[in-house]
């Protein structure tokens, strides 16, 4: 599930922070370069400077593969256009707009915006209902070298349980960097045995992600 948030005011900031913490793949677009600098220090490379209503910005943010675009700027006209551009140009299936003037809620719905909301907590509850929990989450793409950090929760029926890491047929260019087990962080070695319920933090080349997912969660249903 890939979510693009446009607008780095208070709503956008806390929304992004919360979504990242929940394990969603998130990207934040903000106009103001000074804010972008601050957010980069906090969130890393998932923040970009740009005008979210522009095609070039949306394309660079990866709107082509986004499942949800959420426009939460302080201006209703901008939120409307961001959502419409995402839908019309990039076929984004779900668009959510923050409505600053409550009178605009009905209008936005008439104009094809899927969901309109006026408060951060409402946005969060809607997203949480609509996005099912996932065992394998892309945490972030690193700016350089095509790397990604992913988090994988090892299920009871995972093909890798009770195996030491050296025995796993991990794809090349993939490293399990840390394991969270019963609230404790383990830095694994080849001898470390994977147990059900483990949360694995993995650094991987982006093109290896699909292979890795299949190894850990089994072939796609």
């Amino acid at each position, binding site marked *: 599930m890939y979510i693009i948030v446009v607008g780095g005011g208070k709503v956008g900031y806390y929304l992004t922070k919360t979504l990242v913490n929940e394990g969603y793949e998130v990207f934040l677009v903000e106009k103001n370069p000074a804010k972008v600098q601050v957010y980069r220090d906090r969130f890393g490379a998932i923040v970009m400077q740009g005008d979210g*209503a*522009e*095609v*070039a910005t949306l394309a660079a943010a990866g709107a082509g593969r986004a499942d949800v675009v959420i426009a939460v700027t302080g*201006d*209703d*006209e*901008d939120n*409307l*256009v961001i959502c*419409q*551009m995402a839908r*019309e*140009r990039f076929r984004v299936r779900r668009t959510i707009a923050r409505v600053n*003037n409550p*009178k605009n809620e009905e*209008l936005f719905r*008439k*104009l094809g915006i899927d969901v309109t909301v006026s408060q951060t907590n409402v946005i969060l509850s809607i997203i949480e209902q609509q996005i099912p929990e996932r065992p394998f989450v892309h945490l972030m793409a690193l700016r350089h070298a095509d790397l990604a950090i992913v988090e994988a929760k090892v299920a009871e029926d995972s093909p890798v349980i009770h195996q030491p890491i050296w025995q796993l047929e991990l794809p090349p260019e993939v490293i399990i960097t840390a394991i969270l087990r019963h609230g404790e962080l383990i830095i694994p070695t080849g001898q470390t045995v994977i147990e059900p319920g483990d949360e694995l933090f993995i650094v991987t080349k982006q093109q290896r992600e699909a292979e890795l997912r299949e190894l850990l969660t089994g072939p796609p249903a």
Partner: protein
Amino acid sequence: MRIVIVGCGRVGSRVATEFAAEGHRISIVDQRQESFRRLPERFPGQLVLGTGIDEDVLRSAGIESADVFIAVTEDDNTNIMAAQIAQVVYRVPKVILRIYDPERAEVYRGLGLTVICPTRTVADMIEQQVREGHPTRVSD
């Protein structure tokens, strides 16, 4: 005709003035009082102070009985939202808007609005002028 214009900049004020001179009923909306200074002294139309994306403001400008709606503020997104209110909520028969960004212009043209994109138009005209002359420098 009853014409509602949002944005009293150079373009809006000029269009308002010309159509008013022909006897049409004009309402012009702008959120800054000083913008109305661009209109001639005895402008016969209605001046409405407020934002063109507020339905209450648009109703007081007579959008419900408008034949033509024109959105020409400096902000593309404001024009787009105002135009869609006119098109979808009030079903104004003719809705014209200016969008500077050519990509955005194309998207909203596809949604049944009459979009004028000055960026594209001017670029095309310049290109045509350059090509027409086939200018080549003759070396001496």
